[in-house]
């Protein structure tokens, strides 16, 4: 003891230690490396956060008049300096030439400032952006027009312009009486359609002029009433009347009995009035539009889904009974549909006849009544051809077995119901469309070109130069909201990314659900059950190598194996992957062999366990490979049997050649990523398991616990935090992966979400959108990547945010677990 102390003392007193030995330079060196790494990471994050968050901030609109008299109006999105060179003179417009020459003088080049305007109005100008150099306009002539509006549209992107006119159409409702006259006149004029005697013709032609006159008088009175009710105007308001085929203002309108008035238009002018009127209706119109979208997408989608299922039933019956009936069934439905339409028209005509009897003189009454017969005949004749076709088809179908007939009958019922449902929904859609069609906003571009926009096509509009800070924040947050919960528009460069968020999260979760049990079980086997040996080492090395395989390789594997083999097999059975199935007897023989192998392997295992319990015999490692070989053989034969099964024709044979699972989809993408992240999970879990002290295992065994009880109650709880760490890593890797997804199911635009309210709720076969792929698509595949650029940043920010949230959630969970199993100090 004392010896040691002396030595320590002498060391302390020895002067002149080298810098290296004291460690100071290394502190700076290592600390510096850390600082540089941090600066790079934080810098990247800040860059993304800054660019991602400014995208949605509303910017004022500037307007300049160029030297050639043209106007440029829009948001200024970026600016830069560049060198103007002599050789650029040729590309400069004549209006600027003098100025540029003066600017350059004798110099070879000169520094020029230029700014990029986002000019929008793509439908008019064919460009979204315009660079404007400082010399192209007179200095200090730039203005910010008070009433310039930024308009976000459903189609064609932004529009920048000043409000000119706001119009609301009012339709004139035609009263029943007037309509009856119109219908009757039409009916009587259509004489050539049905068989009609000369005598009847004479009676009709005698009465027609009087009828027409009555109708016109009635109409004129109705029009006068309508105009009186609707022509009160206020300031800035005028009225246009749709008379006949032209539109005239109220002042110019001359009542004319031969002219119908379909409706009129209230028109407002003056920027402020127009803006207020527009705002008054915009929300309602938008709401109607959104409701209509739900009908179009969801309700019609559901009906189509039902129809498709009906069709697939018949197709399945075809396959089951080896018949060709689907085309006949479809043809029958088509003919029935035509007959229904004819029936409808006939009924309308008959109703007109019925009602008109009350308003016409007796001799005409008689003639019209007599016409009922020919009308019926005419329509019967129209329908006859279709009916005979149906009879032919029926005769053919009669020969089919009863179940097929039943299926076809069901099919027809489904189709009829679906047609009815579609008609109902369509009626509502048309009503909503007609209502929205009434409201029109007209804007003028800086050049003075007028453009009429339907109010419901405008997603958002605001007078950019009049906004208070509060308004700006409102718009900013609203845009974020839209971004998070809406579908994309305009080739993904506008609107939201909700489907992509949904797809990313769903895929990551399914991936976790798959990879967690597999990874943990595999690691449990490797660490807890397997005897250490060559095979286990090889497996470990292989797993570690798997982690280094480029992800695109996994994508190729996923496409080739999951989609084209596994998926095609699921769709159409062995035939679909060009495998000739075994004959039934061979297959059953194979099955018996497999069973025999399994039984032998189990017996072998039981024997080995018994042998192991007997500690008097020496341990012989090679004995354990016997059941392993048996199991492998059984597995191999089972796989072959499964591939060559003769009794299986796939689950989705009916919809072939359209693949269901035989293409990229949510399931295959999740599986591919699960495979990709499997090594991460296995390695992390193995590490966590080996960090569990052996003394715990022995302690558990000593109380009489079995192996599994020990693992479940002692080993796993202790290893959970480590396993969770592995899952976090796997999740982060999986959610951010793009390359393999491009091959196995991520798409630019998915019509349907992979998880929705239609049974079975999770549609594993569907393609999906993914944020990572979305970024790639926006940035590099978009035909208008300049306009999409801000969205790239925002989407990146969102993706980073989502991964961050997923990680934080997992880390919090892990910390809670860790606290529960915290090791005490003593």
């Amino acid at each position, binding site marked *: 003891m004392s010896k040691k102390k002396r030595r320590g003392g002498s060391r302390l007193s020895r002067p002149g230690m080298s810098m290296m030995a004291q460690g100071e330079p290394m502190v700076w060196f290592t600390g510096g490396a850390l600082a540089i790494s941090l600066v790079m990471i934080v810098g990247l994050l800040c860059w993304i956060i800054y660019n991602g968050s400014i995208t949605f901030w509303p910017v004022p609109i500037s307007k300049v008049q160029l030297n050639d008299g043209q106007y440029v109006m829009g948001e200024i999105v970026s600016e830069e300096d560049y060198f103007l060179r002599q050789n650029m003179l040729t590309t400069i417009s004549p209006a600027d030439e003098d100025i540029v020459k003066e600017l350059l003088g004798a110099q070879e080049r000169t520094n020029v400032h230029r700014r990029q305007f986002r000019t929008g109005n793509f439908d008019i100008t064919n460009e979204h952006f315009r660079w404007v150099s400082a010399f192209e306009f007179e200095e200090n002539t730039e203005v910010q027009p008070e009433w310039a509006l930024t308009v976000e549209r459903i189609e064609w992107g932004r529009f920048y312009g000043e409000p000119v006119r706001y119009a609301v159409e009012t339709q004139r409702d035609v009263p029943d009486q007037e309509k009856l006259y119109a219908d009757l006149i039409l009916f009587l004029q259509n004489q050539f359609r049905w068989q009609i005697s000369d005598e009847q013709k004479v009676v009709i032609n005698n009465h027609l002029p009087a009828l027409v006159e009555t109708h016109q008088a009635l109409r004129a009175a109705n029009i006068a009433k309508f105009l009186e009710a609707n022509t009160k105007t206020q300031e800035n308001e005028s009225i246009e009347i749709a008379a006949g085929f032209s539109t005239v203002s109220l002042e110019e309108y001359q009542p004319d009995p031969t002219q119908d008035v379909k409706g009129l238009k209230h028109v407002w002018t003056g920027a402020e009035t127009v803006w207020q009127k527009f705002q008054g209706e915009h929300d309602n119109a938008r709401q109607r539009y959104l409701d209509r979208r739900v009908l179009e997408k969801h309700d019609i989608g559901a009906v189509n889904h039902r129809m498709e299922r009906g069709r697939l039933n018949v197709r399945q019956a075809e396959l089951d009974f080896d018949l060709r009936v689907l085309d006949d069934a479809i043809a029958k439905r088509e003919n029935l549909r035509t007959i229904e339409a004819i029936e409808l028209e006939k009924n309308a005509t008959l109703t007109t006849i019925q009602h008109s009897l009350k308003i016409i003189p007796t001799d005409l009454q008689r003639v019209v009544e007599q016409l009922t017969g020919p009308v019926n005949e005419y329509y019967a004749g129209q329908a006859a051809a279709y009916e005979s076709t149906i009879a032919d088809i029926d005769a053919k179908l009669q020969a089919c077995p009863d179940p097929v007939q039943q299926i076809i009958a069901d099919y027809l019922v489904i189709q009829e119901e679906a047609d009815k449902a579609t008609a109902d929904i369509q009626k509502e859609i048309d009503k909503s469309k007609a209502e929205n069609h009434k409201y029109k906003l007209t804007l003028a571009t800086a050049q003075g070109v007028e453009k009429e926009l339907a109010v419901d096509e405008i997603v958002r509009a605001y007078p950019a130069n009049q906004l208070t800070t509060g308004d700006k924040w409102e718009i900013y947050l609203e845009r974020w909201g839209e971004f998070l919960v809406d579908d994309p528009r305009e080739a993904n460069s506008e609107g939201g990314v909700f489907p992509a968020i949904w797809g990313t999260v769903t895929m990551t979760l399914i991936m976790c659900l798959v990879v967690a049990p597999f990874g943990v079980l595999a690691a449990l086997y490797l660490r807890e059950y397997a*005897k250490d040996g060559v095979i286990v080492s090889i497996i470990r090395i292989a797993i570690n190598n798997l982690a280094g395989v480029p992800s695109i390789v996994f994508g190729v594997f996923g496409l080739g194996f999951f989609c084209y083999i596994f998926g095609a097999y699921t769709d159409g059975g062995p035939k679909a992957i060009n495998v000739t199935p075994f004959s039934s007897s061979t297959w059953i023989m194979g099955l018996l062999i497999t069973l025999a192998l399994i039984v032998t392997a189990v017996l072998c295992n039981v024997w080995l366990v*018994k042998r*192991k*319990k*007997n*500690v*008097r*015999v*020496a*341990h012989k*490692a090679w004995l354990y490979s016997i059941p392993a070989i048996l199991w492998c053989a059984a597995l191999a034969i089972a796989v072959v049997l499964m591939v060559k099964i003769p009794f299986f024709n796939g689950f989705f044979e009916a919809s072939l050649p359209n693949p269901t699972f035989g293409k990229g989809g949510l399931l295959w993408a999740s599986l591919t990523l699960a495979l990709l992240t499997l090594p991460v999970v296995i390695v992390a879990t193995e590490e966590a398991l080996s960090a569990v*002290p052996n*003394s*715990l*295992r*022995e*302690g*558990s*065994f*000593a*109380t*009489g*616990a*079995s192996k599994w*009880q020990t693992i479940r*109650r*002692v080993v796993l*709880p*202790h290893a959970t935090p480590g396993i969770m760490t592995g899952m976090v890593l796997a999740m982060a890797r999986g959610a951010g992966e793009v390359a393999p997804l491009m091959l196995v199911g991520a798409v630019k635009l998915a019509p349907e979400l992979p998880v929705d309210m239609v049974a079975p709720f999770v549609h594993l076969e569907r393609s999906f959108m993914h944020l990572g792929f979305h970024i790639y698509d926006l940035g590099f595949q978009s035909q208008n990547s300049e306009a999409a650029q801000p969205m790239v940043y925002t989407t990146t920010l969102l993706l980073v945010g989502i991964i961050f949230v997923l990680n934080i959630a997992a880390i919090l969970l892990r910390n809670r677990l860790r606290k*529960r*199993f*915290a*090791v*005490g100090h*003593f």
Partner: protein
Amino acid sequence: MSTDSKNMNTTTENGLPTILPDLSAHQTEGDVDRLRLIENGQVIPAVIHEDINDEDIILEINKLNLWYGNAQALYDITFEVPRGKVTSLIGPSGCGKSTMLRCVNRINDLIDSVRIEGDMIIDGDSIFAPGVDVIELRKRMGMVFQKPNPFPMSIYENVVYPLRIDGVRDRAELDEVCERSLRGAALWDEVKDRLRESGLSLSGGQQQRLCIARAIASDPEMLLLDEPCSALDPVATAKIEELIQDLSGDYSILIVTHNMQQASRLSDYTAFMYLGNLIEFGPTYKIFSKPETKETEDYVTGRFG
């Protein structure tokens, strides 16, 4: 105590030649040099005192040989453990005490390379016969390890663990066992208000007593203690020694220790082992006061080791 074991370790690690001259100096005529013979690989019958014949026997060890792979660790061990008494195993480090102890509940089975010949008989049942249900066997004895190893769960769950794995769900029974075991391990008063807390939040001595509570929870016939106090301070050690004394009578206890005072204080019988051989076995007071072999006397008086 820690210095004790340190010295012993150094001795074995340095190799035995340093001991031998020392030993021969004390050799009496007519006595064989057992240590040298053992080192040369000979098996020498142990000296067993007669007193054991008057005892009620719980565990009979019968010509036990054990190999780790090709290396033999126990040679022909034969002795008997009395019921309701404390029996201690002493001997220099690496002599096979732990191995011996771990044979009793077959924890050694977990090591693949182990092979055993001979037998042990507990209460008439063979331990190594083929077909013995190891799990049932282990449930008949509790084991406490050198280092406390509480499980990553609450104190309560730690104690009732043996019942849990038997599938006991009855709350009242579990509560009762928990209290009884903790009282038995002299831990109840310290932890009765924090049964839901993690077992890992206890101090080292408390953890060791928790392990003892776990070991006696299933009411075993035997307790196997492998240096239970080696990681503890004198106060905790004293508590555990007291506990062992309380428990003897109800339980038959087999304890491994490096602390001669502890062995002589605690145990009724003592076995002295050397390099996998049993040298002497007898009542503790005889082993420590008038052992029949020179080697035992040297070891217990600290002249070697």
